């Protein structure tokens, strides 16, 4: 099946790449490319979040997993459309053809049934369903077997009310709500939850899978087209279920390597801002790697300045939005566990500037 060909064989799809901020950069150094790309992404973020439409379409997959699903869907769709047209047409024809007329005889012929016809319309659907079952079962087994390739990128995805934790197990860092993966390399997600059941769904990457507390699920895919792909939690998980969103960045391998290298290096936050961070109690829940702030309850903020969004991909990561978020998180995200710390404007300003620079 073409959907399981090696990633290199996938053709580039320029229509999708056009949307990606990363394409704006053609600088040779991955490091500089990353910086430019991030800034471009931040600049584009408000645009992506409002007005300018983002595709969530399950019909435009960018992974082997998504394409495998689309293949089955395509087969099933045409079969069902065929059945729909034939059966509804028969129904409408019968209604029109056999409508009662004034010159009808008193009673129509009293037909009770026809055994051969019954056998026919029992076997026909059975045969059609058998045809649907074949690609279904093949895909069920293939997409849940061990992933192809030697060395999948392992990411542990942990659901929380209402944000996502991404632990890059082999690379030794943790981030939140925005996942970066390299194009062409298989990514294996290990999915679990710290509280209630969530469901990981980035429609263009493929199907969803639940994050069950107390057990682990896996899901793998190989992305073939760079870009930014939006997703949602798909299992009702409490008040702000609708606000538990995420973004996945499919980067060129060298861009990804540079990003990962930077993520793994300790942050050096602005000292005044960091003092405000500690004094406000932020460190009780949030971590900034390389500093004493090691809270685990909330999203890791080590490279928060690199992210294009905040509050689980809900708001663009701009100083104004960040300040509004710190002022009253609950008004933006109902039920959020982050308290309103009643920070002074001065302190908010320090925190916003520090986080802007955490990149």
């Amino acid at each position, binding site marked *: 099946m073409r959907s399981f060909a090696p990633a290199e064989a996938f053709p580039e799809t320029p229509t999708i790449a056009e949307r990606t901020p990363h394409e704006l950069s053609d600088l040779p150094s991955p490091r500089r490319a990353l910086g430019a790309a991030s800034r471009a992404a931040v600049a584009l973020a408000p645009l*992506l*979040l409002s*007005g300018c439409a*983002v595709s*969530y*379409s*399950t019909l435009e997959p960018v992974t082997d997993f998504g394409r*495998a*699903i689309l293949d089955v*869907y395509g087969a*099933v769709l045409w079969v*069902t459309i065929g059945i*729909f047209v034939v*059966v509804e047409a*028969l129904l409408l024809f*019968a209604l029109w053809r*056999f409508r*009662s007329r004034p010159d009808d005889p008193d*009673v*129509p*012929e*009293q*037909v*009770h*049934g026809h055994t051969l016809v*019954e056998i026919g*319309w*029992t076997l026909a*659907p059975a045969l059609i*369903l058998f045809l*649907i*079952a074949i690609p*279904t079962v093949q895909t069920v*087994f293939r*997409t*849940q*077997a061990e992933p192809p390739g030697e060395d999948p990128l392992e990411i542990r995805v942990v659901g929380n009310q209402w944000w996502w934790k991404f632990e890059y197990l082999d690379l030794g860092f943790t981030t939140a709500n925005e996942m970066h993966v390299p194009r062409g390399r298989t990514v294996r997600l290990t999915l679990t939850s710290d*509280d*209630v059941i969530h*469901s990981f*769904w980035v429609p*263009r990457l*493929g*199907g969803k*899978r*639940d994050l*069950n*507390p107390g*057990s682990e699920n896996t899901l793998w895919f190989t992305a073939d087209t760079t870009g930014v792909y*939006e997703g*949602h939690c*798909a*299992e*009702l*998980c409490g*008040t702000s*279920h*609708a606000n538990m969103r995420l973004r996945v960045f499919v980067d060129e391998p060298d861009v990804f390597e540079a990003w990962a290298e930077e993520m793994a290096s300790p942050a050096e936050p602005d000292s005044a801002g960091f003092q405000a961070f500690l004094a406000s109690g932020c460190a009780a829940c949030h971590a900034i790697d390389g500093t004493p702030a090691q809270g685990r309850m909330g999203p890791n903020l080590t490279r928060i300045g690199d992210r294009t969004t905040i509050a689980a991909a809900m708001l663009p990561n701009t100083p104004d939005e960040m300040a509004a978020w710190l002022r009253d998180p609950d008004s933006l995200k*109902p*039920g959020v566990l982050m308290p309103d710390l009643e920070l002074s404007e001065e302190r908010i300003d320090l925190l916003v500037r520090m986080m802007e620079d955490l990149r």
Partner: protein
Amino acid sequence: MSAEATTVDARTGESIYAGGWKSWLTTVDHKRIAVLYGATALIYFVVGGIQALVIRLQLAGPESTLVGADTYNQLFTMHGTTMVFLVLMPLAAAMFNYMIPLMIGARDVAFPRLNAFSFWTFLLGSILLNLSFFFGGAPDAGWFGYANLTSERYSPGMGIDYWMLSLQVLGVASIASAVNFTVTILNMRAPGMTMMRMPLFVWMSLVVQVLILLAFPAITVGLVFLMFDRFFGTHFYIPAAGGTPVLWQHLFWIFGHPEVYILILPSFGIVSDVLPTFSRKPLFGRPFVIFSGIAIGFLGFGVWSHHMFTTGLGPVADTAFAIGTMLIAIPTGVKIFNWIGTLWGGHIRFRTPLLFAVGMVAMFIIGGLSGIMHGSPPVDWQQHDSYFVVAHLHYVFFGGTVLGLFAGVYYWWPKVTGRMLDEGLGKIHFWTSLVGMNLTFFPMHFLGMDGMPRRVYTYAAGTGWADWNLVATIGAFVVGLGTLVFYVAAVKSLRSGEPAPGDPWDGATLEWTMSSPPPEYNFAETPEVHSARPYWLHKYGPTREASTHTMEEGTPPQPDEPPERIHLPSPSWWPLFTAFGFALAAGGALVGLAPVLLGVAILVTGVFLWAFQPLERPGGPVYGPSAASGD
């Protein structure tokens, strides 16, 4: 029996529904209980409909602030719970109650007082559920209330308590009535009414009762576990203490999938009786339609995990449940083909019941086909918990169940009320419902394929979902308007409707052999049945096909006066009293131990007083010549 027995004869012009409020509280007549069920369901239909309209208003545009996140979660939870348990099930129960005894030639159900108990328990359970809006907040974890979101820790409010307690109460009501109807259908058929001669509505009702009997215990176990987790600190669903939230999903869907058939099979039965009447032909392939209904019910127990393809059960479970799901499509297809076969060659009269029945078939096909799509696990991984599934389930529940039940409402309304419904208003109701539901639900397929998850109170402007959501909202109001037309037509009919004859549609089955509404005792004389279409054969004589093997005799219309004396069960307070004790025991758990104990005491007392009260007592309703002559 006492000579002082009061006799009320329907022939004197006295309505069988006459009598003060006390007569309604103590009634054990299946017809009156049916009216109570139907009226309650139609009131909750308005409640659930208003909830749906608020939901649609909220989603009409992106980032709407009409209602907040918490209110929205309560609205869709209560919309689902209300429509499933307080509208579709009781509306079907109303028809089971009214029609089953009339269609099989019985004077009442097997256990008339248990029947009253079922209704009162249902009513009180439904009130308990809705009290949550006023005291403590409505449930907000969705109509299938997945653990561990429902645990004390993540749902500390009272909403989930209301939900789990009232669902247990409603479950008892359903199980009690399922026992009743099962026994009624198996034991109380008139002479000659063999199983294979039963009308399809009775057949599908029987399958539904068996499904209720087998499915409700599963959710009851699930709810009891949940109750223990929340009230007594157990850990059935708490992963931090070694419990498994996925256990709830299994228990819920072992109930929940048969529940889908509990909701749709009554409509299948109605359509299978309405189409022959209005095409003036027998049901095509009658035994195949019966056995495919049984097959659907049976297979319905083997497919629950198709609601759990994203839970991560692995490829073997996915395959098994996918194949089971596809198998169900076969008997369902057989039914649809036989319905078309019934219309084929008929003289189709486009009266309102037929329009709704045909609309049901046409819309259910869409719901069935989208169901085949996510019966395939890979497709489901994209469609699950998206708006595609919302579209699918509404094509099944609105297109299938609601249109089918309305076919029954229009078909049997003259029999129940003795008055005709306005045909013109009925047609407006049908066409607005059909257009409105397609405007509302068809775009949801696109929204789902375009990545919109369900149960979101808001969505961002850049998602591209706004246009179809607006269309869906407009459609919802069209449906609302059409439904309003039905209520207007109903009131108009009750006030000034044209009086209905006993057999307004030229029907084939026993309920049309009696006056509209029927006398309290139903059948003056026990009918003798020789055919699946007893009244048709009386009117039109044996059919050509039938005459090739045996001459089938018809069953004549009922005489005006019972030739012999008929004693009917006496009214009783104890079913209501007992149901009240039960509901108090459940609702009391929200407050403290004392009301629970009081409720249990009332329940136990009620059961004893009920058990030792004779079914027929002096002063009870007696009909017939000997009664009129003073014995």
